[in-house]
């Protein structure tokens, strides 16, 4: 894991150093940046030093969670990211929960009734779900559920008079605002995961110990709940852990569409303004969250399957 982190930081550094002009010279053309901020930048990047020294300095700084200063407003990149992170995490965790609790039952049931109308219907749904561009789904849901029917707000995360609400109404208001984004974010992965759990379930049902259990006349509910479900959950947990990068990439799109002040939209704004320190910081944090997802998936795997030792 440590070599991976070093590699990640090295590539992020490399990508940004390909940028035309140094970060400081970019800021020279930006009248919004004060002289003081420019000096801070000069000092931070130590641009008089050779490239490898610059890299090590930068690495030392990111270990302290210091990504430098934004070229747009001169604020600390780390604090800009930190204030945007909670919204993105909330939305993504909520969509992971929705994916988990709908995709698996859907997949299991269509596997159990393989070849039935329900199974064929979900198969078609899965292929369509895979192919649906999330930003199109977002636009359609905005158009119909938001504008036409007026059921959901289509931008922001709070109402105008949010400040005067009692706390429970604040929570409800927030949930109401993020419901469309969460639905859109979960839709794509929903299809993939239900397909996957269906295939795994069919594999398990074909195993000898399950067929033995059926042959000796155990009730099917007992076979499924006691013996067949656990081996299906294992690979599904891994897939959930691996879906982190996709969800983060998706955040850029739906946060931009729904004007949600999260990490994804921050990234989009950074790209639009060519704010390289911000982009670099978000790139590193995105990769770190991906690694964290893999790591949590590994942990869950070990917890669920005692045969796997961590030393592996």
């Amino acid at each position, binding site marked *: 894991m440590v*070599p*991976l982190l070093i*590699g*990640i930081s090295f*590539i992020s550094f490399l*990508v*940004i150093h*390909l*940028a*035309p002009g140094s970060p400081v010279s970019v800021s020279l053309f930006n009248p919004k940046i004060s002289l003081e901020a420019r000096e801070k930048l000069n000092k931070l990047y130590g641009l008089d030093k050779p490239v490898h020294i610059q890299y090590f300095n930068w690495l030392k700084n990111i270990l302290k969670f210091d990504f430098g200063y934004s070229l747009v407003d001169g604020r600390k990149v780390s604090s800009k990211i930190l204030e945007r992170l909670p919204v993105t995490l909330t939305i993504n965790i909520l969509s992971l929960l929705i994916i988990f609790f709908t995709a698996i039952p859907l997949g299991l049931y269509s596997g159990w009734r393989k070849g039935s109308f329900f199974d064929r219907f979900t198969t078609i749904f899965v*292929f*369509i779900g*895979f*192919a*649906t*561009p*999330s*930003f*199109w789904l977002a*636009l*359609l849901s*905005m*158009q119909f559920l938001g*504008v*036409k029917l007026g059921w959901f707000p289509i931008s922001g995360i709070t109402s105008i008079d949010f400040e005067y609400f009692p706390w429970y109404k604040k929570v409800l208001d927030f949930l109401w605002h993020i419901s469309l984004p969460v639905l859109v974010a979960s839709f794509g992965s929903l299809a993939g995961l239900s397909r996957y759990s269906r295939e795994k379930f069919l594999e398990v049902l074909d195993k000898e110990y399950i067929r033995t259990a059926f042959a000796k006349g155990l009730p099917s509910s007992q076979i499924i709940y006691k013996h067949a479900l656990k081996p299906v959950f294992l690979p599904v947990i891994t897939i959930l852990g691996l879906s*982190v*990068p*996709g969800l*983060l*990439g*998706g955040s*850029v*799109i739906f946060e*931009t*569409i729904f004007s949600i002040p999260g990490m994804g939209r921050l*990234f*989009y704004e*950074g*790209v*639009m303004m*060519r704010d*390289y320190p911000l*982009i*670099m910081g*978000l*790139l590193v944090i*995105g*990769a770190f*969250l*991906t*690694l964290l997802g893999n790591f949590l998936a590994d942990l869950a795997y070990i917890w669920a399957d005692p045969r796997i030792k961590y030393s592996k």
Partner: protein
Amino acid sequence: MIKRILKNKLGLSGLLIVLFISSLALLAPFITKYEPISLNIEEALLPPGPEHLLGTDSLGRDLFSRIAYGARISLSVGFVAVGIAVVIGIILGSIAGFFGGIIDAVIMRFTDIMLCFPSFFLILSLVALLAKPSIYLIMVIIGLTSWMGPARLIRAEILSLKEENFILALKILKIPTPAIILKHLIPNALSPVLVNATLGIASAILVESSLSFLGLGVQPPTPSWGNILMEAKSTLGVAWWITFFPGLCILITVLGFNLLGEAIREELK
């Protein structure tokens, strides 16, 4: 194999969809009545009808023409990007698989590192480095960020192939190493990459349309499905057809390549 795919119901429908979209792209100048970029404010925001098959946008441009020309963009980005990714993947994967040892370790660690980045983040960062994104640069960027799958597949295939007797025989015959790799190992290792490439075209099309939708891909007035949808945002709730049809085209095209890819996978099993 093609015969068997034609017998597979899902594969056949995938192939038909791909053929349909390809002919739409190829025949675009012949089947459209209007130029995709010719403005006509008097005919703005017309709903679908006999004159404008899929209606017009807020500048009076014919939506059908724009979608047909947009198909050219989407398909060429899909094919070229995947071509680049597969070539990089074949080169790195076969070198890693054949030589093993430290070369293999270095290449595969690099692949692992690249896989740690959320790919859309990486693509956006590279786009940010460009002064002005052009369609060719978009193709290259998508290719440069999606070679990891093919590289891993090729490496795994070559690892198992190089232990086979026929490769051993070639080595004993003192056939030069590059010839063994190019003529014997790579052609035999290609079939799993075919599945990956077909599915890759679908995802490259999705990525391109997302980028263009965010305004960071193909730039107007050149029509692409993504930037038509970007412009549709301003007429949300007024003109449903501008939102509906381009997205439907993306869905159908991606669906077609996915179905085809799945069918090839089934056949290779």
